């Protein structure tokens, strides 16, 4: 066998698994490091700088002022609470809506209907985010379709405000919650449901004692999507939220109108911190072990 350079390298690599792994990972790790870690680090560093109030230039003098402002200012506390509340509600609504849909898709529908439903769930993701939000804006407007639907039953349209924001965000992130739960249900063998029923459990009992415990990882995975996407959103609340502000709006105005990049960076640290706590709690439940 001739020892060509390519062969020599191949032989070397086949004998050194670690070198092989390092070469394979180097490109994606470099990209991840540059785009993700570096950007985060820059954000973190910027939060400890300040802005010259006269020239509007960022000054690279170290200060904790921004962090202190963000943590103690009553405006920031209120907006943080509101944002977390909205994100939690959106997540809970999405899970409640997604569970029966995913169950029907995975366990009841025929294979043909199953394919159609998967496409139906994915379809909204192909439409533009703005189109969907404006569709809700028009639906929720005065004389819009929501009002037309609920008025005969004595209801009133929520109009623009936080409820509208929650409804719209729930709609936007629903596919991200349905799909992991659907995938999780696909992994629950039908024989387990039959065994539970065979042993005397009625439907609700089977759901509670067999299906839900096995679905936890999938539910947590879905909730991470809806929760984190809601935490960072500021366009929806701008369009259907009336005068309400979420954390994203504060970041946006500080980058733009107020031209205070360090303060914006400090605000942006809040959702990151919340997500770290959220993932930590999710990890505690053991839900991330089987992802």
């Amino acid at each position, binding site marked *: 066998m001739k020892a060509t350079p390519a062969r020599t390298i191949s032989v070397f690599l086949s004998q050194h698994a670690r070198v092989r792994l390092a070469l394979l990972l180097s490109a994606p790790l470099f990209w991840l490091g540059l785009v993700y870690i570096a950007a985060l680090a820059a954000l973190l560093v910027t939060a400890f700088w300040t802005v010259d109030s006269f020239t509007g230039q960022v000054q690279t003098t170290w200060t904790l002022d921004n962090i202190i402002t963000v943590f103690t200012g009553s405006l920031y506390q209120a907006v943080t609470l509101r944002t977390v509340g909205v994100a939690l509600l959106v997540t809970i609504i999405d899970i409640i809506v997604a569970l029966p849909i995913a169950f029907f898709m995975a366990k009841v529908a025929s294979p043909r209907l199953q394919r159609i439903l998967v496409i139906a769930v994915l379809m909204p993701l192909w439409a533009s985010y703005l189109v969907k939000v404006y569709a809700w804006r028009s639906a929720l407007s005065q004389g819009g379709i929501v009002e037309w639907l609920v008025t005969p039953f004595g209801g009133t349209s929520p109009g623009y405000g936080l409820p509208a924001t929650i409804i719209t965000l729930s709609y936007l992130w629903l596919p991200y919650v349905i799909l992991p739960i659907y995938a999780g249900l696909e992994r629950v063998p039908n*024989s387990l449901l*039959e065994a539970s*029923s065979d042993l005397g459990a009625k439907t609700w009992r089977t759901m509670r*004692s067999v299906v839900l*415990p096995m679905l936890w990882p999938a539910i947590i995975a879905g909730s991470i999507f809806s929760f984190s996407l809601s935490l960072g959103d500021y366009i929806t609340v701008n369009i259907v939220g009336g005068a309400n502000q979420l954390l994203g709006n504060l970041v946006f105005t500080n980058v733009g109108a107020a031209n205070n990049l360090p303060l914006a960076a400090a605000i942006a640290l809040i959702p990151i911190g919340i997500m770290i706590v959220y993932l930590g709690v999710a990890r505690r439940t053991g839900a991330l072990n089987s992802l």
Partner: protein
Amino acid sequence: MTSETPAIRLTGLTKTFGAVNAVDNLDLDIAEGEFFSMLGPSGSGKTTVLRLIAGFEMPTSGTVELLGQDVTSRAPFDRDVNTVFQDYALFPHMTVLENVAYGLRVRGIAKNERLERATAALEAVALGTFGPRKPSQLSGGQRQRVALARATVVEPKVLLLDEPLGALDLKLREQMQVELKELQRSLGITFIFVTHDQEEALTLSDRIAVFNNGRIEQLGTPAEIYEAPMSPFVASFVGTSNIFDADEAKGMLGRDGVCSIRPEKITLHAPGGKVVTDTVALAGRVTEVIYLGTSMRILVDVDGGKRLTVLEQNAGTASPLDRRGEVVSVRFSPSDLVDLEPAMA
């Protein structure tokens, strides 16, 4: 309730999937305390019958009676039957003890009592110390026994077993067969056992129903099924048979109709020897000798172009290969021939 009330009575039971009749107008009584096997190739309808009895499927028509009560339209959780699943279907997020106690828990039995009973059930299958483990930490045979304990702890009237030994290796399977039989005797309840393994069915059962195309081809004790098969299908599916079709029976044996003979009823002799009266003797040539350990399977081409399978005890005399090509006289008693009804089209 009289002693004549069958544990299970199926009347006119039919189940169609699309255009296919999975179960075709089935009538069947299974007695209390019976070890009953449903034997057949895959797709013969035996598992569907089991699922209809358990309530996982609703019949297209017909009724299912349990101890004289019509349970046809009842949900699985309302039927006093329990199932041991082919894949065991143990709940992966529960411990072994929680799995076994599950049926008691959903019945609302107090914690102390249910733990006591579940532990006893685990001890009955020799897994007393395995309670705190998760199913994933058990071997196949152990999972099998947990599934048995889980299904029997709720004291069903009838236990359904869907190919429960299919995934086990041979040694373990033989051991589990003995345990199943003992368990059935000690519990005294009806076992309905689905299998495609004819040997397993013969070993375990009081009665066997041989299934083919959604119908029962033959119903009887293991001896009846093996010694007196009533159709070519049963003769060839249960054990090995040499089947003579109508022409061959006429030409070679001088008989009318399809008949068959078991390989172990045939003996091989040197040609030209004296033939005992009332014995069929056919001239032939050995074409293949298969070594099976305790016995030899010998394929013989007899004059007239038919290949017969002969089973000979391994007496350790001749080397198998020496016999290939040997000219022999194939002999058997006509009384060992079994008349088969022509198969229904």
